[in-house]
């Protein structure tokens, strides 16, 4: 399923590479002891180093290094035992040092790869070019005062990882899938919370177009796109713009553009906004970062199970379909929810829960209901334990599957236990054969015509009787028993 733009001169293929800035989960900044917590008052999390006071020196935060290594391993990438922090020099009011400490020629993480699971069950491998660590800048606030700008340095010095993909992405959908997969991996690792709204993940998008089979054409960088949807939109509109430039006889120039969310278009940045000569050079305040292989191995050995491994295990251990497994592992919390339902030992009997039933309830019913109200799995009022109890009521024949759905709806609203709801509403399934026989007798007596139809060979009418009986019992009669009794009586 390839994404092609139909132009006047034929089909155009889109070539995309992403540069993702991911804020590292760490209590303190990359080179200072100041806190990184989100939401503090402006300029309340600023050390002397972050404010670039005279004579201040950076000291590397070991935990941030560990997080970067973890991420590198999670991206199946080479960990470079030798890396160098360099200074990227430019002036801006929210960049107190006048330079950003970043890695340039020698990043901490080299080439790796991510496997994408696309909609149609196809997988695609996207190469990772590198991952490097760098400081974030502060924030400029221009709209509080007509003449002055305000500077908030809380973010100044916070550790970012810049993760650069190879230009392997071929459609907006793949870009979305890449970001979702990357975010899932980062969240599994606990190295970035992946909240694009809070700015802890941002992307620069490199886009070019070409006729399939051609060499790469000039690329354009669309900067600072801060949601998955916008990344996909930006690729779409930028690719279309480039096609029309090429096809009208023009030439795409290498430049930096911004995605205007309101207009749904990209626009060129003024040359002044990006034409920096950054004068990179190794930061003389920091020695090259040299890692011992034993240290890297010790970090690797503590890595949690990642989405791809988890997916494989779900398929193997629980016999889930690749599709179901994907839905679950795309979000660590969802996978964990499923696993707790599976792992919870039922109180009464030690029977295992059926993974196919569980996955169906979790993905269709629960995720469906959450989606409908725009909530996250962490906001679910039904705990994994409660959902498990509900499913046990069904498998123990205490309630029917249909009743279970009603009970589920009440649980979803209130967070109450299934058994309480069943008890209170008297929803327990009727499994007493005598009771069912009495109801069946009554219904048969009231509907002699239909009885004759069945006896005349119209088996479809049996279904009609089942419906009548279920209705008469508010759905509480055990359907298997109803069927059994009906067939006996009607024969």
């Amino acid at each position: 399923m390839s994404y092609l733009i139909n132009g006047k001169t034929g089909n155009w293929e889109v070539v995309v590479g992403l540069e993702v800035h991911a804020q590292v989960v760490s209590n303190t900044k990359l080179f200072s002891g100041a806190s990184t917590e989100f939401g503090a008052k402006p300029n309340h999390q600023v050390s002397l180093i972050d404010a670039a006071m005279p004579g201040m020196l950076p000291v590397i935060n070991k935990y941030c290094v560990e997080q970067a290594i973890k991420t590198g391993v999670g991206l199946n990438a080479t960990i470079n035992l030798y890396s160098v922090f360099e200074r990227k020099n430019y002036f801006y009011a929210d960049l107190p040092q006048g330079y950003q400490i970043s890695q340039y020629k020698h990043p901490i993480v080299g080439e790796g790869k991510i496997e994408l699971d696309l909609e149609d069950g196809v997988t695609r491998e996207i190469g990772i070019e590198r991952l490097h660590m760098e400081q974030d800048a502060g924030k400029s606030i221009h709209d509080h005062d007509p003449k002055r700008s305000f500077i908030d340095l809380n973010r100044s010095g916070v550790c970012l990882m810049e993760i650069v993909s190879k230009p392997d992405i071929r459609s907006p959908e793949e870009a979305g899938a890449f970001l979702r997969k990357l975010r899932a991996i980062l969240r599994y690792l606990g190295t970035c919370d992946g909240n694009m709204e809070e700015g802890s993940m941002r992307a620069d998008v490199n886009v070019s177009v070409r006729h399939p089979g051609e060499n790469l054409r000039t690329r354009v960088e669309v900067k600072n796109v801060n949601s998955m949807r916008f990344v996909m939109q930006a690729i779409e509109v930028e690719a279309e713009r480039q096609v029309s430039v090429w096809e009208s006889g023009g030439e795409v120039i290498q430049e930096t553009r911004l995605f205007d969310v309101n207009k749904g278009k990209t626009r060129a940045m003024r040359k002044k906004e990006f034409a920096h000569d950054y004068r990179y050079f190794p930061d003389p305040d920091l020695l090259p970062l040299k890692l011992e292989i034993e240290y890297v191995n010790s970090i690797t050995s503590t890595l949690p199970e990642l989405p791809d491994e988890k997916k494989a295990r779900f398929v193997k251990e629980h016999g889930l379909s690749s599709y179901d497994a994907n839905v679950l592992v795309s979000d660590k919390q969802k996978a964990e929810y499923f696993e707790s339902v599976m792992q919870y030992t039922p109180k009464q009997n030690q029977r295992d829960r059926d993974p196919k039933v569980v996955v169906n309830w979790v993905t269709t019913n629960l995720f469906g209901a959450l989606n409908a109200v725009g909530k996250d799995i962490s906001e679910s009022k039904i705990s994994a334990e409660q959902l498990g109890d509900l499913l046990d009521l069904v498998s123990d024949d205490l309630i029917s599957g249909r009743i279970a759905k009603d009970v589920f709806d009440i649980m979803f609203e209130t967070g109450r236990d299934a058994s309480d709801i069943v008890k209170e509403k008297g929803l327990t399934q009727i499994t007493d054969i005598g009771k069912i026989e009495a109801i069946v007798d009554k219904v048969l007596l009231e509907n002699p015509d239909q009885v004759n139809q069945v006896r005349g060979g119209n088996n479809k009418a049996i279904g009609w009787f089942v419906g009548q009986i279920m209705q008469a019992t508010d759905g509480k009669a055990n359907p298997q028993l109803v069927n059994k009794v009906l067939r006996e009586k009607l024969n």
Partner: protein
Amino acid sequence: MSELTRLSISEAACHLESKNISSEELTIAHIEEMERCRDLNAFITETPELALQRAKKSDARRSKGENVGAMDGIPIAIKDLFCTDGVLTTAGSHILDGFKPNYESTISQNLRDAGAVMLGKTNLDEFAMGSANVTSYYGPVKNPWVVNDLKDRVPGGSSGGSAVSVAARLSLGAVGTDTGGSIRQPASFCGIVGLKPTYGRCSRWGTVAFASSLDQAGPMTRSVEDAAIMLQAMAGYDPKDSTSARVETPKFNAELVSGVKGMMIGIPEEYTLDSTSEEIRKLWEQGCQWLESAGASCKRVSLPHTEFALPCYYIIAPAEASSNLARYDGVRYGLRVDGDSLDEMYENTRGEGFGAEVRRRIMIGTYVLSAGYYDAYYVKAQKVRALIAKDFEAAFADVDVILTPTAPTAAFPIGDRMGDPITMYLNDVFTVPASVAGLPAISIPAGLDSLGLPLGLHLIGRAFDEVTLLRTAKALENLADFNASPSKVDS
């Protein structure tokens, strides 16, 4: 002129110890001298009240038997490049107008902890960039050595104020910093001892940075023994400075009186320059003979890349400076000269805030780091730097210490060489190689020229072997028996 100001640190420490004198008396004597010699312009900020306070505290400690060592109660001067808590810190620059840090540099803190009494902050070349102390925003410093022509001479630089403070008996010792000779060359011009320790021996935290990979704090004193005492209080690993060396701090005076018998002294062939005066050449030979007379052997060694040291230095130091000085942007502290836009504010602030020499070096540094020039200048200079370090390594396989002149000339009149920065830069030709190689080196007053101006001899030691360096220096000091003092002091 009080007898108290003629003491050495070790003598003063003995008197304090035996309670012949109090720190308060000692401090008052120096404060009076500072006032008497204000025309020398050695201090940018005098802190007499603070000094008396600390002197009294020292006396109180001593009376309780709690004195903390050889520096306790000793009045010293601090180069105004070290940030001092609550005390104006200028770096000799207009751009740091009114800057009073709320933190204390590690070096000045270490000295405070050792009980030393700070008399004030000494004048220096702006941001330590200069060899004559003529680039300070606070005016030139005058050398206390005045000869028959009665001309005011430069004290050397950049630690000119510190050198003058010690030479003119305004303090018992002073802290300087040395990037390419800024301790040793003024020590030579002023007839005192100046020691640049191994790079990494003294913390750079809280010292206004000039060139991070070269800057090193060191003591300026009237005797080698005093230099050892002062360095003892200053040196040590500092976790706040990533380039601070994690090595044990030795007892620097451990072998001070062991002599040089059996030692091998290296005489580098390449240090013979046409511009070196005949007197200095003779003094150098004399130094050789002195050491041989004390049982050392002198041996010619080759440091083949010496001629490239100065060009290498004048690429690396400005490159680092251009980036280090980017933080002085008018946004957070110091001078701000408003403009109609952010860029204009930067231009106005930095244009007015920095003097001509600093602007020149920022421009040189910016140029050598620019795209297209980086490899030809900065990268090449780093390669040369490695070769220079190798030269020394090879030489030190054969010799224990290397002997050279400190500077090619004696102090010159204020106003000379101002028009020609290259000639000015040549002042550092003998001191720069050790800086580039990160090696410890010391200047010892060894004689007077025909005009009666002091001349220094320069010893370079192995990395982190200040003990041997000081031992050789002590022997040379004894042999040279330099006891002249500046006319200003004799008056």
